[in-house]
């Protein structure tokens, strides 16, 4: 484990990145620094996971404490100032349809909105928004402040108190104790965090902020198997020092499309991003200083994400590339801070400044904060069940980077799942588990608790085998009923969703009845059903009007209608495979099964199954090393086990 070498400095010597302005702090945050007492749920950490968890618990009627080192850092964007992106945007839409908060806050704090993958089919369109990061924190605080039963507590968790394998509460470093029936831990990169910049090693979770070392030790004492991961962030530059006029502009969409199903329309002046590139000189500086990079000197032992490599990695692994893209993204409307997307680095500060200044537009750049790599502990997620509750300690949930993921959206999704499940358990309700064919959120959790992870897990659309069913356009159709049943959507919201989709279906039926005249293959004119024309590559809902067909569906539903028309056959195919998979997921495997004798399974399968303890036959089938034959044998054991458990009929 990481503790062998203790960092000599603390990251707290640096100035932290700004959080919400003091004026934005809600009234109820006052007194947070001294508050203690007894709660239904304590959520440790107010990042993207913690906010969703606390919001869900409080909205579901439980008294909830949200514990954070500093209230103004609530929902802080530690890395890039953006929400969404391919597959991530899908998850935000899903959370929004379930009653989560990330989409709403993004709409309020967004400064540039863009639908990614427009060039492909609507099934993989994905929304993303640049945000004003200080505003994002402020808007999240404002939203949470309005939720009854949610209390902010300022302080640092020292340990989780456990009695007889059941969680009892959280002890703080200043001696306060928060008693709780359920605890959700969402510490992000703070769990034993170590920051690397060249030869310098600093203890901390973010630049300028302390690490949570005691909490990690506590988890080790409780018997959790931990691992070490690494991620990184690029330097931030002073906007006024950049020659932005020399660079290509990357504008937002016009009109911008909101993230949230509950935002009618976005009224904002969008900001620009800019594009520039590294060059041979940049790469030369990197190569010349490689020996000073902790990645290459061996100082970093945690595994970093391959999908988000440092500039050092890019230069070394792709030597044939003469340049790499860089996006310059403003961190806010008023903040003078620019995020340099594409040059995540752990080089020494002076090397960072040297290579930054080789880049066009950045020749006279002033660095506000250097980039760095951060290593942190995580808990190997095979120790969690499908609700993200720890098997070892009942009442204890984990969410976010502590489970081995990366990304705000991945964290938020887990925070939501953990919070809802903590609330449902305390309310005596059944677990809330989304299937892989229902939501990316379901794919995420299922991947976490059935697979081995060697790098921080990020969501990709290719992770979803039922990708065509899981679209950003139909998140509400898929999940609003569930959100309503959870108690997180109002009757009115559900009614709106039903009306929207009824409108799509009505329009679909109507277009199957009317025909349009379009050019045929031989240059002649042919009449085809409007719905069939919509299914063609050149067909679109917007152009129906020019063909003499009324097209009155609201803009937000066009994509949904087009995708239904165009991909009908494929969607049907995916529905069938999804139904077959769902049948396996419907067979539950009792935890006690893993302690019983299970013959007929291969040795490898048995070993894996006893490690992961899958809750359903479907989950078992997805564990590497478990063959279809093993699943068949398990099916027999599950049936036999269930039959034995049944009480003998009265004689």
């Amino acid at each position, binding site marked *: 484990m990481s503790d062998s070498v203790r960092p000599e400095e603390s990251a707290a010597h640096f100035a932290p990145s700004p959080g919400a302005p003091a004026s934005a702090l809600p009234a109820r945050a006052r007194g947070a620094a001294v508050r203690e007492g007894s709660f239904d749920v304590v959520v440790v950490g107010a990042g993207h996971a913690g906010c969703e968890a606390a919001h869900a618990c409080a909205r579901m009627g439980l008294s909830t404490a949200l514990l954070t080192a500093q209230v103004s850092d609530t929902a802080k964007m530690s890395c890039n100032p953006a929400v969404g992106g*391919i*597959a991530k945007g899908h998850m935000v839409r899903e959370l929004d349809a379930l009653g989560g908060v990330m989409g709403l806050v993004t709409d309020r704090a967004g400064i540039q909105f863009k639908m*990614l*993958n427009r*060039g*492909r*089919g609507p*099934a*993989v369109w994905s929304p993303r928004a640049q945000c004003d990061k200080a505003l994002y924190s402020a808007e999240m605080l404002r939203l949470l402040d309005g939720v009854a039963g949610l209390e902010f507590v300022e302080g640092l968790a020292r340990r989780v108190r456990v009695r007889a394998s059941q969680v009892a509460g959280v002890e703080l470093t200043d001696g306060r104790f928060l008693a709780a029936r359920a605890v959700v831990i969402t510490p992000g990169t703070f769990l034993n965090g170590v920051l690397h910049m060249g030869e310098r090693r600093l203890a901390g979770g973010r630049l300028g902020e302390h690490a949570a070392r005691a909490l990690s030790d506590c988890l080790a004492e409780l018997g959790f198997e931990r691992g070490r991961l690494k991620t990184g962030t690029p330097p931030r530059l002073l906007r006024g020092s950049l020659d932005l006029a020399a660079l290509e502009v990357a504008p937002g969409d016009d009109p911008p499309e909101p993230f949230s199903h509950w935002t009618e329309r976005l009224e904002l002046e969008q900001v620009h991003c800019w594009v520039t590139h590294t060059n041979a000189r940049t790469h030369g500086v990197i190569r010349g200083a490689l020996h000073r990079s902790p990645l290459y000197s061996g100082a970093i032992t945690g595994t970093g994400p*391959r*999908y*988000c*490599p440092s500039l050092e990695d*890019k230069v070394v*692994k*792709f030597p044939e*590339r003469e340049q*790499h*893209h*860089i*996006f310059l993204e403003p961190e806010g409307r008023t903040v003078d801070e620019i995020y340099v*997307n*594409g040059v*995540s680095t752990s080089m020494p500060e002076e090397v960072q400044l040297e290579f930054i200044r080789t880049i066009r537009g950045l020749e006279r750049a002033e660095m506000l904060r250097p980039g760095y790599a951060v290593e942190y502990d995580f808990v190997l997620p095979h120790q969690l069940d499908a609700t993200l509750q720890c098997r070892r300690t009942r009442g204890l949930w984990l969410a976010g980077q502590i489970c081995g993921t990366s990304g705000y959206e991945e964290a938020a999704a887990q925070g939501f799942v953990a919070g809802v499940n903590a609330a449902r358990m305390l309310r005596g309700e059944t677990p809330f588990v989304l299937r892989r064919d229902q939501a990316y959120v379901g794919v995420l959790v299922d991947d976490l608790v059935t697979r081995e992870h060697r790098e921080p897990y990020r969501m*990709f*659309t*290719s992770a979803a*085998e039922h*990708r*065509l069913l899981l679209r950003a356009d139909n998140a509400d159709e898929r999940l609003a009923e569930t959100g309503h049943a959870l108690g997180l959507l109002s009757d009115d919201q559900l009614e709106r969703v039903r009306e929207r989709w009824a409108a799509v279906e009505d329009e679909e039926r109507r277009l199957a009845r009317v025909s349009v005249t379009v050019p045929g293959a031989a240059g002649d004119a042919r009449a085809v059903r409007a719905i069939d024309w919509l299914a063609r*590559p*050149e067909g679109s809902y917007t152009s129906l009007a020019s063909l003499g067909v009324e097209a009155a569906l609201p803009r937000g539903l066009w994509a949904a209608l087009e995708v239904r028309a165009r*991909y009908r056959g*494929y969607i049907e195919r*995916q529905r069938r495979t999804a*139904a*077959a998979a769902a*049948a*396996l997921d419907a067979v539950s495997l009792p935890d006690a099964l893993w302690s019983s004798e299970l*013959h*007929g*399974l*291969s040795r490898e399968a048995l070993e894996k199954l006893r490690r992961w303890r899958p809750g359903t*036959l479907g989950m078992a*089938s997805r564990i*590497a090393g478990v*063959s*279809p*034959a093993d*699943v*068949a*044998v398990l*099916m*027999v*054991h599950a*049936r*036999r086990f269930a*039959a*034995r458990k049944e009480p003998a009929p009265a004689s």
Partner: protein
Amino acid sequence: MQPLVDTIAALATAPGTAGLAVLRVSGEQALAVSDRVFRGSAPLTRAAGHTLHHGWAVGPEARDEAGGERRLDEVVAGVFRGPRSFTGEDTVEWSCHGGAVPARRVLDALIAAGARLAAPGEFSLRAFLHGRMDLAQAEAVADLVHAETESAGDLALAQLSGGLSRRVKALEERLLTCVAEVEARVDFAEDVGGIEIPEHVREEIAGVLGELDALLESAPWGRAVREGVRIPIVGRPNAGKSSLFNALLGEERAIVAAEPGTTRDRVSERLVISGIPITLSDTAGVRDARDPVEAMGVERTLAALEGAALILWVVDGSQPFDPSGDPLPAQLKGRNLVIAVTKADLGVVVDALEPWRAAEPAEFRGVHVSAATGEGMIELRAAISVQLGAGTPGGIASAVANPRHTDALARARGALSRARDLSEVNGAAPPGEIVALELREALAAIGEVTGRQASEELLERIFSRFCIGK
């Protein structure tokens, strides 16, 4: 493991020569699927449970010249309605003629009609899950599934060693790269960019498709390897056919006599050469037969040549070669031959090239042998195995023999040809996520043959090919 939603089919009796071969079809659609193949006095869907029905199995697409359905085998279909059946589901048991070929053809037809080839132990598993077996039997089912899988696994592995394994794995590699190229553009649009399905990916898809076609063309041949091939021994009377037949079998089987024309009927015997099961059939010597009894034998001999994978032509090496008046060489033109010049112990006066010129076979190998001394017998066996291997590109080792493999590769080909058609749409850019869907289906099907789960490798490949992370 598939859940219990589909209809499964498999051979229920041991493969090989027997009086009967029984196929079992089980599942919700068992009767409907069977009706697509069965032609009797009434459809099976209307039949009562526990009844037998005589009829014919017909091929799903194959038509004879008159445009009618092609009969595959005369069959008796037993209808068992669930829950009163072995599996507890609607079941049809097809009794076909013995030997591997008729049952195999009927099974192919049933799969084409919508059944899925059953996994090892799947009938027993279904029986258990439908409550047709009690708890005491359950443990036996688990063991059975395991055991059947183990043996099936061994078999598949054995078949995969060598050429086929290399060929399929090479295709999988190429396909994985195609999927990575397409997926990378879907998931990392801003990092990868470029056009949706680049030209080199289209070419690669077409290339893999061509290879799959070639592999599947080898499937009937590979099946013959798995299920055996027939080799007729032909030649003029008294050329030494029966002696050679016996020498190959290593036992007295045919009547051997110095009088020409002694063997009037085919005599068949099975032997194994290089792991290939062979049915060797001795035939009557061919000449312008004057004896009417012999003439019938000659007719049968010529019939025996039909459909034979390889013909062993026996030529008397002690007499000068004279093809005049011999009807045989003309029958052997374009065939796959092994020419055995016999009686090497009596002094050879014939060169194997002489009969080769007379017959003009497509493939041939000549050997000088003596049944009496055993001279040349090893070479003869070698020649036979080489000639059998010459039937496929890459030889027998790379032929697809296992029906499960054929099934999987055929599905891969189907998905891949849809991917090709999609990516060749003129004009508008083909949607990457749809092409990817087909490519991944093809990859998964090939993975059933190689046993590889490629999803993790996919990311590996994307990250190694493309610089992701703008």
